[in-house]
């Protein structure tokens, strides 16, 4: 039995009268690729934003590797090894593809203004080392040919890959992937899944994945957590979840569940 890297207890968030997320308990085991599915409006994205620090919960606690991270801002979560991707990729448009990756590792004081003026030698050495790492990530993602293009000029699929590249540069422990497969063709989808599996197996990165593509979920995720109407409905393997009448009801309505 593996240990929970992420523990969510009693998490809730309302928007006015709408309880988007209520009383959510969730464990993400270290080393797992946990899937998070549910019909539109189930509260998946709100839950993601709460864990990623983009929203502050109305109630409940979030722990990462035992440390309480409730309410911490995104940049503080990043330092603790938690990073997210965005459903619609958000590259730094006017930075080159390589710069989009170079900018990620914070270094140790290299991002300080005084370092820019007083420690140029150290910065140059670190940049050279960083470039080698970036070149490797670019090669892995087949983005080398576009390395020096502004990221805003990439195709939709390349932007998805770049989003994954930023995850690779972050050397994160826990990655929240927000619909990485949305609007992506089958070939690229398989490629993305391959990168995720490799990061998980070779680098021990834990993933929590929101996804609508059930094939991708079935290939990658165990366990799968189902949300509906702001709550966790059930969780289990993809096969278990698929067979659960409550899940069918949540997706298709009560009648369909009876018919099944």
């Amino acid at each position, binding site marked *: 039995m593996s240990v929970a890297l992420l523990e969510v207890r009693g998490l809730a968030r309302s928007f006015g009268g709408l309880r988007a997320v209520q009383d959510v308990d969730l464990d993400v085991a270290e080393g797992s690729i946990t899937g998070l599915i549910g019909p539109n409006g189930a509260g998946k994205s709100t839950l993601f934003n709460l864990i*990623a620090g*983009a929203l502050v919960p109305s109630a409940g606690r979030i722990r990462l590797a035992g440390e309480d991270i409730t309410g911490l*801002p*995104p*940049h503080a979560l*990043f*330092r603790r090894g938690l*990073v*997210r991707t*965005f459903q619609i990729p*958000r*590259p*730094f*448009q*006017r*930075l*080159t593809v*390589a*710069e*989009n990756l*170079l*900018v*990620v590792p*914070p*270094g140790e004081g*290299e*991002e*300080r*203004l005084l*370092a*820019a*003026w007083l420690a*140029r030698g150290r*910065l140059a050495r670190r*940049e*050279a080392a960083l*470039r080698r790492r970036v070149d490797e990530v670019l090669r892995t993602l087949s983005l080398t040919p576009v*390395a*020096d*293009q*502004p990221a805003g000029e990439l195709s939709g699929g390349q932007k998805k890959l770049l989003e994954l590249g*930023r995850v690779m540069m*972050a050397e994160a422990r826990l990655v929240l992937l927000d619909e990485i497969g949305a609007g992506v063709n089958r070939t690229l989808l398989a490629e993305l899944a391959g990168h995720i599996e490799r990061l998980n197996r070779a680098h021990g990165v834990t993933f929590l994945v929101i996804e609508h593509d059930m094939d991708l979920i079935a290939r990658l995720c165990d366990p799968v957590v189902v949300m509906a109407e702001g709550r966790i409905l059930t969780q289990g393997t993809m096969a278990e979840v698929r067979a659960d009448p409550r899940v069918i009801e949540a997706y298709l309505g009560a009648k369909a569940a009876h018919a099944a």
Partner: protein
Amino acid sequence: MGLTLYATALLTMGGIYAVLTLGLNLHWGVTGLFNAGIAGFFAVGAYATALLTAPPGATPSGGLGLPVATGWAAAMLLSGALAWAIGKICLRLRSDYLAMATIGIAEILRLIVKNELWLTNGSRGIAGVPRPFEQLAQPWAELAFLLLVLAVLAIAYLLLETAVRSPWGRVMRAIRDDEAAAAAAGKDVAAFRLQAFVLGSMLMGLGGALSAHYFKYIGPEATQPLLATFLVWVMLIVGGSGRNAGAVAGAFLVWALWSATELLTNRLPPDWLTRAAYLRVFLIGFILQVVLQRHAGGVLPERTAVRRPGP
């Protein structure tokens, strides 16, 4: 002789504006901060140095007659401190709030300058601000001051260029492009923005100080939004937002054009002369349109692709 003096004056003012435009480029071009109150920081710098360096008796509360360097240091410190206070409050909010706050503060400062007679002498302004090298014979006094301005500009340019090309600058440009993604990539957006805002505002304060020493005088007209905010924005957009060389080129270019419009409007028939000020603004707006039609990114646009070092 006359032509030398005219060219020197043109270059001196261009250089002072270039310092302001470099500050705005750090704010807007590099970090994406909409500062609509450049005049406020300009005023703080100009009045700070004027009060410190003017001889006793220059204002009702007196000048301190301190060395010029002290005035410049105070100008930068005070405008930086003002930026820090505004930034602490506004930089966490959506970017339009910074624009509103800076406009508001600049207007408040202009009213203070106009009305607090004991401190600023009101609309009569502060005269007798010392200008370095003013004891030299003409045209050497003018030329020496021009060299001083250009030296200050060169130092500011080199420092900013180094900063923008460093990892620090890369973080700033990332924040400009997408704030949420920068935060998700581990950057403390508010802290980085504050640094850029303070540093850029210090340059604006320095620009104000240079101007006060150049004219040996500072009055409320010099801090009007048209001259100290609008014109600087035009310079940055025409020159090339995001690129320091563009900011400097834009400042000299637009200042030359602005001065040329004065030559034109001076030849207008008398009944048009009263409208000359508006005509000049119209002409500058027209030039802005023409330049942007041909060069959307300015005369020297930002270079996005980096030249990668050898293998």
